[in-house]
């Protein structure tokens, strides 16, 4: 799975420019699953109950004739990553930018960004270095408009980028053994998990929709519309969450290496009690270590899906991640594998939600 994670994280895909990620994912979809792209660009991948291959339509069989009646279940992982967008090219060819998604100032200085390029995965485009104006008050974090990108140009004429072009962080994937580091783990790791689930999942009584959404980082914009179209009975997002296990960090009871985390609450939603219990009991019966997650700030696609139409019982399985929204997001490979195992087990069986 590490190669898949590497390819996914190295893809170019800031919010609004997910095409390269989508194409890579599409090529990885195993047989038996059918894919289509919706109006905003999310990739909806479907397999009807039974696991015999998806000729099933959108509402393919949720009722069962026997004891094992399946449900229509939607899983969502987002394809987009945070990045920057060119807002102005000044007279000397320096580029001013705005954020695409939740970019924080601290990780920027001296960083490199890369604009869209000719390679199939979107790489190979022009790169630049992030600089900073003189700082008057060293005790405060400078505002975003004090930064700029140096593309090596000396005027707007020889600047290789234009207003509106977007770039992602330019950083390569690193395998530290147990730990994997890359930009865009948020949420290519979720995409990798969903692909792996597709590969490992045998027969299932459930009507499964695995959705690779767009524009999560700029406001969960792709998830709501794709959920609206699917009308799931249960929804789960698979996304990263923070940890509380680094020096003098904000307190949080989640650590790298202790397993995937079942979300109870985050900044946008409360997980449906029945969905959360379903995940906990699955973990327990499959002996998969998992953690209990309360995230104070930040949220996932599940928040948008949960209020779709007349409401959807929704939850989230999280991959703990350090240095989130920096170019070096770190996850634990064991946690990732645990997430795959938990989801495969959960989706293979009929689901009874309580509460």
């Amino acid at each position, binding site marked *: 799975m590490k190669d898949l994670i590497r390819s996914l994280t190295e893809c170019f895909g800031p919010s609004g420019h997910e095409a390269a990620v989508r194409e890579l994912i599409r090529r990885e979809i195993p047989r038996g699953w059918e894919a289509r792209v919706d109006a905003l660009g999310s990739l909806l991948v479907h397999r009807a109950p039974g696991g015999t291959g998806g000729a099933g339509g959108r509402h393919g069989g949720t009722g069962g004739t026997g004891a094992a009646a399946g449900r229509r279940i939607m899983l969502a992982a987002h394809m987009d990553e945070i990045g920057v967008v060119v807002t102005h090219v000044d007279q000397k060819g320096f580029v001013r930018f705005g954020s695409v998604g939740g970019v924080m100032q601290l990780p920027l200085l001296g960083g490199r960004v890369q604009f869209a390029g000719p390679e199939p995965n979107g790489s190979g485009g022009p790169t630049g270095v992030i600089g900073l104006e003189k700082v008057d008050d060293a005790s405060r974090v400078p505002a975003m408009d004090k930064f700029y990108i140096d593309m090596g140009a000396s005027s707007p004429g020889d600047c290789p980028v234009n*207003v509106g072009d977007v770039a992602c962080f330019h950083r390569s994937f690193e395998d530290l053994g147990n730990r994997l580091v890359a930009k865009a783990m948020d949420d290519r790791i979720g995409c990798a998990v969903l692909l792996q689930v597709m590969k490992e999942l045998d027969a299932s009584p459930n009507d499964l929709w695995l959705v690779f959404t767009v524009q999560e980082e700029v406001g969960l914009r792709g998830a709501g519309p794709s959920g609206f179209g699917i009308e799931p009975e249960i929804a789960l997002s698979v996304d990263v969450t923070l940890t509380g296990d680094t020096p003098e960090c904000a307190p949080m009871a989640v650590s790298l290496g202790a397993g995937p985390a079942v979300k109870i609450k985050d900044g946008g939603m409360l997980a449906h009690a029945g969905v959360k219990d379903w995940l906990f009991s699955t973990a327990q019966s499959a002996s998969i270590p998992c953690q209990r997650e309360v995230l104070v700030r930040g949220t996932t696609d599940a928040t948008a899906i949960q209020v779709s139409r007349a409401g959807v019982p929704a939850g989230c399985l999280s991959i703990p991640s350090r240095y989130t929204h920096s170019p070096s997001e770190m996850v634990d490979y064991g946690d990732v594998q645990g997430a795959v195992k938990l989801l495969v087990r959960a989706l293979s069986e009929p689901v009874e939600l309580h509460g």
Partner: protein
Amino acid sequence: MLLQRLSEANGVSGREEAVRAILLEEIRGRVDSCRVDRMGNLIALKKGSGGSALRVLVAAHMDEVGLVITGAEDSGVLRFATVGGIDERVLPARMVWIGERRVPGVIGMKPVHLLDKGERDRVPEARQLYIDVGASGKAEAEKLAGKGETVVFATEYRTLGSPAGTGAGGDAAAGAAAASGPGAAAGGARIVQGKAFDDRAGCALLAALLTERFPFDLVAAFTVQEEVGLRGAQVAAWAEKPDAAVVLECTGANEVPSRRDLSPSTRLGAGVSITIRDASFIADPRLVQLFASTAREKNIPHQYKQPNIGGTDAGAIHRVREGVPSITLAVPARYIHSPAALMDLSDFEAAAVLVREGLERLPRAFPG
């Protein structure tokens, strides 16, 4: 002139009736059907001439930012709150019109002679200010303006001279288009001043657009309550289920001189603005490509709005149901959301041409 009538009408978010009435009269001979929904959106259908099964929504919002009366005091002054995003610094010492009857009032201000040092350095908040209508007591004030009545800046529409220095960069194409455009007088006064160009300019464009018939069904939505959260557009898009949407707006141009080399977002005289992304949505790349290439091929002056700034009805429309590919085209104006904005009519005309030409070609961008 339609733009003038629209600009001077009172249509603060939630009370758009006067604007709607003007627009209804303007478009009734041009459309196949027309309705007013429960939120007050004015929605008209111009059926396609055939050749395309697409359903395209074109939207402009009728409401403007303003104030609302929250109560009267015993002294006879009226208290108010802001509706939509108004910079509170523009409020003190302003003349206003209240309600349908346009009751005149002034937002009072403590004379500078009597300010203490601390006060001089602070911007009074809206809730510290009041409107004086000349009433001597609470009852008289309430007769003139009840709770919930809306208030607009008392700005009349005016035509000013051409921009100093022929607009940014002296774009020859812009100059040529301006000189030959329908509104150009010899030596042309092209700059107009008024309130609520955001988004009466868009409404005027949409009303004019309805004289055309396109190969596809065109749903024109004059929406309500954009300024308080893109509200009318959301329900209009829900009901009309478009395949694509084009929002016509008026967007800010920040050309006040600065020492820093920064983007003005848009410029007067540089043509119609195309949004690539703003704070509320990311334009569908096919639509950006469609309008950009149309503008280039037809020599329509155009510019790209600075990304990430502001929000429009497209922010609500694109997320409705299963999603709607959307774009916003806008006329630049200086000082939007203030009592008086400035707009260059050559940009307005460029917008009219681009939206028409782009829509003609839209079926190619969305085949099938």
